[in-house]
Every structure is written in structure tokens, then in C-alpha cells.
């Protein structure tokens, strides 16, 4: 990595952290404007759509900040979709924050005679989105969230701040279509960016655990002086480093699908355990609504479901068995 690249990534991380903090006090629609003005939604998008046309390495610090700060905006979906739409008009609207976009990660819609039907799900914040990408058997289709034949209803995910929604399609008309390779690029990118976001969440929760155990006194001394708790935080740090290491390697090997899958799988497995451990260290406080551990945990479990971590494990195992028949 050159020093210039390193400086650029550091600057991206700082910009993203500021924008995420600012978004916390804004309504969803205003968050779009805030993120767009900071230049974050268009990091991956084509220059003809007003984007920066940068690589995933620049999106990683942005999603890291989004995860660390519990951003309530489908930023990952907006960034990837704006990039996939190339120079199309919808891409520019997403980049500018004029339209909020999300992706229904689960289920497949049927595309027949130019019309979409079926029920898809795991679409974060589709209830406040303008555009929704739905997957089809062969690619994907973009629909207007308020268009005829499109109904958004609450899903059943754990996250209450960026809730998963279901989308029911009844002869809906697509605004644009994406080919299979574009959908593959979105799914591959999402694996990496979810890992980055989970890594950010883990670091926030670890910092909270360190702060809490450093000040909370029990048995006459600060909790942080008990070795069992110190080691629990070392395990949380280990999780954060595992996630960072897997992401770094995947960025070095962009065509290595196992490395990419491993970044996401490592993030869900070690990240969820680390946040659960940070929650545990908060004792009874950790079980309250006000302490944000549960919000991170809800978000991580939602990302895990959106990325279908169990299905990914099944595919990795099947490939291993096939390769060693």
C-alpha cells in the first residue's frame, strides 16, 4: 500500500465517522443527504453517475464506520447498487441522496413477460426506501418502492433500527435489469462490506467493555483487574483482528472467492461472539435497552441472515467435498 492510498483511506474513515455521527440525529431522508454530501454513497459508483469510481478498499473504512456507529441507513446496499447501475439515471439519484435504495437479499422474484411477481425479503429499511433491487432467477430487477404492484411490509428480523422488510410483487414493472455477473459483484462486495461493518461494531463494543470494566468497582477493585475479564476482552480483540486480517487478505486477492467468503463467515462467527461477550461484561446493564450492545447484536444477526451465512457454510463444505472426491 502506498502512503497516498493509506492517507486516503484514513481520510475516508474520518469523514465516514463524522457523517455517521451526524446522521444519528437526523430523519432517514436527511441521512441520505448527509451521507451524499460527505461523498460516501458514491464511493464505488461510476464517475458518470457522480461517483468516485474507487475500489472496495475505499468502501471498507466507510462501512467500518457505519457499523461502529450503528448507522440507520442502507449504505452498503446503496453503494453497491449505485455502482452496479453504472451510468444509469437511478445511479446518479442514489449517489446524490435523492433516492434511497436497498436490496432484498432473500428470495427470488419471477420475471415473466416483463413483469415481476413473488415475495422477497431481508430488505433492510425498504419501508423508507425509494428503490428496491430484487433478485430474479437469472439476475436482478430494480423497482420503485411506491410503484404499482409493489407492497412493502415488515419482516421478522432482529434489527429494529434498520428493519428487514418483505417486498410483495404483483405484476410490478422493473425500472432496470441487472445481469447475473452484476448481481454476483454485488453479492461478493456485500460479503466484504458486511465483514467491515461487523468489524466496526466489534471495536465499538470492545471499547465500551474496556471503559465499563475500567470504572466499575466490585470486590474492592476495578473489574478490569480480574484476569478472567481481561482474557474475555483479549478474545474480543482477537475477533476484531481476525475480521481485519480476513478483510485485508481478501482485498489483496480480489478474485479469490474463498477468501471473500471467509471474511464474511469469520465476521459473523467471531463478531457475534465478541459482542455477546462485551454484553456479558456489562452485567445487568448489558441486558438493558439503553446500553447499545443489543443494538449491535441485532444488527450483526441481521447481516448474518442477509448474507445467508448458513447457506455459505453449506456451499463451502460442498466445494471441499467435491474437490477431494
Amino acid at each position, binding site marked *: 500500500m502506498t502512503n497516498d492510498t493509506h492517507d486516503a483511506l484514513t481520510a475516508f474513515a474520518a469523514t465516514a465517522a463524522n457523517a455517521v455521527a451526524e446522521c444519528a440525529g437526523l430523519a432517514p431522508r436527511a441521512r441520505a443527504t448527509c451521507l451524499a454530501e460527505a461523498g460516501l454513497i458514491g464511493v464505488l459508483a461510476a464517475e458518470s453517475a457522480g461517483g468516485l469510481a474507487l475500489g472496495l478498499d475505499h468502501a471498507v473504512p466507510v462501512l467500518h464506520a457505519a457499523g461502529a456507529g450503528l448507522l440507520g441507513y442502507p449504505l452498503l446496499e446503496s453503494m453497491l447498487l449505485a455502482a452496479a447501475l453504472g451510468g444509469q439515471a437511478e445511479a446518479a439519484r442514489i449517489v446524490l441522496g435523492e433516492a434511497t435504495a436497498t436490496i432484498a437479499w432473500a428470495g427470488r422474484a419471477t420475471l415473466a413477460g416483463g413483469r415481476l411477481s413473488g415475495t422477497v425479503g431481508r430488505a433492510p429499511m425498504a419501508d423508507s426506501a425509494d428503490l428496491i433491487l430484487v433478485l430474479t432467477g437469472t439476475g436482478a430487477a430494480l423497482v420503485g418502492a411506491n410503484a404499482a404492484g409493489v407492497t412493502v411490509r415488515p419482516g421478522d428480523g432482529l434489527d429494529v433500527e434498520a428493519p428487514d422488510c418483505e417486498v410483495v410483487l404483483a405484476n410490478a414493472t422493473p425500472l432496470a435489469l441487472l445481469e447475473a455477473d452484476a448481481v454476483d459483484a454485488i453479492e461478493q462486495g456485500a460479503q466484504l462490506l458486511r465483514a467491515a461493518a461487523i468489524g466496526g461494531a466489534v471495536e465499538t463494543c470492545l471499547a465500551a467493555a*474496556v471503559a465499563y470494566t*475500567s470504572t466499575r468497582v466490585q470486590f474492592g*477493585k*476495578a473489574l*478490569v*483487574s480480574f*484476569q478472567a475479564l*481481561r*482474557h474475555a*476482552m*483479549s*478474545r474480543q*480483540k*482477537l475477533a476484531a*483482528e*481476525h475480521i481485519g*486480517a*480476513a*478483510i*485485508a*487478505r*481478501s482485498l*489483496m486477492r480480489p478474485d479469490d472467492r*474463498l*477468501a471473500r*467468503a*471467509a471474511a464474511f*463467515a*469469520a465476521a459473523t*462467527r467471531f463478531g457475534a461472539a465478541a459482542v455477546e461477550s462485551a454484553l456479558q461484561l456489562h452485567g445487568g446493564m448489558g441486558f438493558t435497552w439503553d446500553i447499545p450492545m443489543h443494538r449491535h447484536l441485532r444488527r450483526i444477526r441481521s447481516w448474518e441472515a442477509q448474507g445467508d451465512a*448458513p447457506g*455459505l*457454510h*453449506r456451499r*463451502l*463444505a*460442498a466445494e*471441499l*467435498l467435491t*474437490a*477431494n*472426491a
Partner: protein
Amino acid sequence: MPTETLPSGDAYRRHVRAWLTVNVPAGLRIDQPGYRTPDLETCRAFEAGLHAGGLAGITWPVEYGGHGLTIREHLIANQEIGRLGLPESINSLGKELAGPIIMAVGTEAQKQRFLRPLLEMKQIWCQGFSEPGAGSDLAGLRTRAVRDGDNWRVSGRKIWTSASPWSDRCLLLARTGALEDRHKGLALFAMRMDAPGVTVQPIRQIDGSAHFAEVILEDVPIDAADALGAPDEGWSAAVRVLAIERATNRMYRAWRFENEVAHLVRACRANPTLNGIIGSGEYHRRLAEILVDIEIIKGYVEPTVERLAEGEAIGDRGSLMKLHWSEAHQRFAVLALELLDQAPPGADPEVAAARERFQHLYLRGRAETIYAGTTEVQLGIIADRMLKLPRER
């Protein structure tokens, strides 16, 4: 091959593959039919060959018998060696501990005297750090080195000394100051294992072998020329070198791990009963998690190599990798045993060979969370040095 002609980068990988294809003796690959546990002399000859072929001492300077290449080539060689399931080095403590420490603190004469013979497998080294009363806490070390004119005399006991039954030299850590000095007053020596007063008492390990021993030192004379660094420098040199070594030693581990996983899967797939079991959903998640575990090890190794190659510091990252690898490897060994033990009675040579390999791995793997700093020591390093958690006030 003359050292000067060794290529770098991708060409070096082709060289390594070609060399291994021609020079790996039949029966040395543990995942292949016809494998025989190699004896000491076979290992010695093979490792000497690796060095002559440019696959060991890769980053060491040419004037000391090395090949003068970068850590990137070191990684390439380790990847290719790991993939083949070749025997573990019988001189890893020489190549990965004693050698780098001599390079860091040794005199020019010592570098000339020790480094090349070690690579050529003419001198095998062991490591005399742990003692009956000083395991994880080396500051409690009691073995004493006292002046004898210009020379030294050493008395004490070392334990868990791997490779000592067949070693020529011992990288010995001994106390020149008072016990209260803790980490100060510790000196390093290149002690001859055939010196008078050295007694090696092999200790039987949990797998039945005796690769380590208790080494009793009774007034052992050590030449002034075999003292490494200044008398007070031993501990700081060891800590400095160990931080890098923990991140770079046995760099083949991830790729050898892949060889183990592939071997297990092949053995199961070839057996009708096990094929049905391993293909069932019950094992999908555990198999996938092991693949991910290996990718994480690579995620520590490959970017670390790049950082070192760029001249960056890596801090205590070695602790992270060591901790993860050792625990993941143990999880895998449990899975391998569990799967193979479900084979029906009867002769299946492939299952039998795999079971022998993985029973051994299961037992020997218990050491991996103990040696080179236990898991608990690594967690302490992360808490103290990486997280900088406050101590009790």
C-alpha cells in the same frame, strides 16, 4: 545450485515446485500411500537438500550460507512445502530461533561459525529456556552462569527441551545476576550438548515418543566464544527476536493445515460409510468453519509478510496468529478423530493411514496451545500490550 542464480517472485515459485517435484523422496509425504515415518538421518538429509536447493535459509545473507532473498520468497517456499505434507523440521529451533538470534546479537566470528552448519544440518539446535520452576514465567529462571576466567560455568536444570536428544548445540538462557533481577542479568549461550556435565534424560510424551527431555547441567564449561551478546542482553534479544519469530516461524502452517483437511476428506470420501457421514449436513458447518479458520491464518500471514517486506513493524501480531492457529488446529484434530472413528471395522488402508496421522495430530496438538507461550500467556500479551488494559491500582 549456486545461490546467485536463484530467481525471485513467481519464477521462484516455479523453481520451488520443480525442485520439490524432483527431490521429494517417495514415502516422505504423509498424505500419500507408501508413507513411512522417516528416521532422523532421512530428515537430516532431506533438510540439507532443501537448503542446497534454495528452499531454506532463504532470507539469510549469502555470506552466512543463506540465499539473500526476501521474506516474500520465504513465504512462497513455505506455501509449497506446506501443501505437500512433508515432515516437520528436526532443526526448527536452530533455523527459526537460534539462527535469527545469532544474526541479531552474535559476533561476526559466531555468525561464520554457526549459521551455515545449521542450514546444512551439520549442527542441530535445541532451546534451553524452560525450567522445572520457570515455564511461562521465564523471569523465575534459576540456571546459573558464573565466570571462570574469561569462560563460563553453568549449573541448573532445563526441561521440555525439544529436540535435545539429538541436538549438537543448545541455545541456553542462564542467569548471571541475582534471581531478584527477574528479566535482567539473563545471558544467552551456544552450549555444546557434548560438553562434560550435560545429561539428557528423555521424557516420554503423551504420544509415546520422546522428542523432548530434561537437560541437567552440572558445572558445564562454556567457552567465552560461545556467549551470545552481552551478559545482560540475553532476555531483551530473545524477546525482540521472539516477537518477530512468533509471526513468521513455521510459516507453512496454513498450507500444511489445508493438506491435513484435504487428506481427511479424501480418506472419508473413499470409505462408503464415512462418505455418507461426511456428506451429511451435520458436518457441513464444522468443515466450513475449518476452511474459514485456515483463511484467517493466511489473513495473518500474508499481509504480515507484506508489512515486513515493506519494512513496517508488526508489533505483537504473532500472538494473534499463534493463538488462533493452535486452537483451530485442535478443533480440527477433534473433528478428524470423530469422523474417522465412525469407520466400520475391517481393513481400509486409507482410513487406517489417516487415523494414524490424525490420532498423532490430536495428541501432539495438545502441545500447540502450551509451547511458545501458552494460550493464557498470549491472552495476557493481548490484554497488556495490545489493549493496554489498566492494571490494578
